[in-house]
């Protein structure tokens, strides 16, 4: 088991390294000389040569990559071209809202999805089932930002229950932070719950006809206990699998909704960085997102062995 863990993590680290190489190569293959762009009309051969040497642009590309990667690993992530501020500090600050929204969205989607799917399965064929299935299907066909826009319109602008944009950091006013993240969390949570609802319904339907469920009921256990202890326990692995596959949707949704609600998180950094062609920031953010994504995937894989003891690794 530990062996598998180590192998899996090593593999993930290798993948991340390759991602960093690809990202680095992509940026450095772009047309245009960064020094010339920086200097514009002030360019002269001496200055250009000096700046080039300073930024290591006269070195072979693998030396430049080595320098960049060493910087990443030692905490020197460079400076954002747009803001002229250190990237590591900017990213660390931006992580807070993104993490809150991602975590909140994941919790909302899991709870809503599993509950709705289970209820739909239990009340199969009734209007509740129909409504849940239809809304899940429509939900899958709706872009995430549309959820955000509708929620913003209703709860932010018309009812004025929550602020429609902006963000306050936890360290400044924790209670206010909560009000700013409710709408984005709901938006991403509801959007993601569509797939979870569908798969929960299918998973529960598959399990509910099994003999051990009949036995549990025959034993006289309360319906609630039967559902939670037996039915859901078995369905969990399918649900967790789909939940894990939804991760890409979650992170993508975070990016989009940060834009909709004007929240200064990692997603906004990427989007704004793209507009200004702030390549160091784009590079760093893509790397951070990939590390997040890969790390959570590894955790999800490992949760399988906990959910189903029959699954052994290694």
């Amino acid at each position, binding site marked *: 088991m530990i062996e598998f863990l180590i192998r899996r993590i090593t593999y993930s680290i290798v993948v991340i390294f*390759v991602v960093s190489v690809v990202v680095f190569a992509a940026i450095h293959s772009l047309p245009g000389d960064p020094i010339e762009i920086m200097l514009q009309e002030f360019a002269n051969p001496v200055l250009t040569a000096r700046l080039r040497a300073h930024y290591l642009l006269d070195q072979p590309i693998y030396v430049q990559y080595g320098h960049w990667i060493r910087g990443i690993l030692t905490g020197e992530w460079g400076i954002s071209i747009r803001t002229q501020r250190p990237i590591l500090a900017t990213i660390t600050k931006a992580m807070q809202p993104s993490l809150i929204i991602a975590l909140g969205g994941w919790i909302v989607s899991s709870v809503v999805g599993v509950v709705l799917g289970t209820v739909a399965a239990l009340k199969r064929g009734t209007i509740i089932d129909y409504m849940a299935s239809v809304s899940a299907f429509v939900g899958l066909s709706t872009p995430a930002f*549309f959820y955000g826009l509708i929620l913003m319109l209703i709860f932010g*602008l018309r009812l004025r229950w929550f602020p429609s944009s902006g963000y306050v950091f936890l360290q400044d006013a924790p209670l206010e932070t909560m009000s700013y993240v409710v709408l984005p969390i709901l938006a991403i949570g509801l959007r993601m719950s569509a797939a979870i609802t569908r798969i929960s319904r299918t998973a529960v339907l598959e399990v509910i006809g099994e003999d051990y469920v009949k036995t549990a009921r025959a034993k006289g256990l309360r319906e609630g206990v039967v559902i939670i202890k037996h039915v859901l326990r078995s369905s969990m692995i399918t649900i967790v699998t789909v939940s894990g596959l939804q991760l890409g949707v979650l992170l993508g949704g975070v990016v989009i909704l940060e834009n909709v609600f004007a929240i200064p998180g990692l997603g906004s950094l990427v989007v704004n960085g793209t507009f200004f062609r702030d390549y160091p920031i784009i590079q760093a953010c893509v790397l951070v997102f990939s590390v997040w994504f890969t790390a959570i995937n590894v955790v999800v894989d490992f949760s399988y062995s906990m959910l189903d003891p029959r699954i052994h690794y290694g």
Partner: protein
Amino acid sequence: MSGGCILLFFVWTIIGPMVLASSPTKINLSARFSPPSLSHIGGTDNLGRDVFARVTLGCRVAVKVSMGAVVFSSILGSMFGLISGYFRGRIDAVLMRIMDVFFAIPSVILAIALVAFMGNSLTNVIIAIGIVYVPQVARVVRGATLRVREEDYVLAAKAIGGSDFHIIFKHVLRNTLPIVVSISTLYLGGAILYEATLSYLGMGVPIAALSWGRILNDARNYINTAPHTVFVAGGAIIFVVLNLNLLGDQLRDILDPKLRGSK
């Protein structure tokens, strides 16, 4: 029925712009923000332009981008999947590791980064979304190829001396094609969503090419005064993607009954 709706959508995409009553680009400031009415079915936007006409024009972008991206990813992904699944061994290992690298980057972010690097243009958006889907198609085709290559008719073809090329194209491809077709329909819907998202963020097709996402981006600033624009454009997206998803589900049930549907 969903097939019928899609057909209707295609017909409207082609003939719509020609039969429109109002021009999608004519600015009429005296009529800005008017709600849906008989003269303007979808109302007007912040510059008095007819919303329904603009959304109609947007259909073209949606169709172009989604079809382009799906064709691109189907061809490339199938190629990788077939080669990987058929030859296995080292080639398989290398190709799948390359796919893993792309899987490691969340899709929306990959699409944004690709458009950032390649620049805003219709072709680049198609390629970017296509690249996002290539690993997924490759994975599915690889799985199907792994199954098919063990079938008797493949072994028989090998026994009578069929070349690998011949076997892949005549036997394996023919039997993996249904799966590619059924997932392609689902990816069509997904591609439309990606394109709308990219355009909403300002990173999709150029402004001149009217995209639903771009319309929603403009509408966002006026959402409180004129929410009808958001609903019409968003409704169009949902309508098309919903029918594509329904069609994809039905196709999947027909073409591969072994795959259980989630009904």
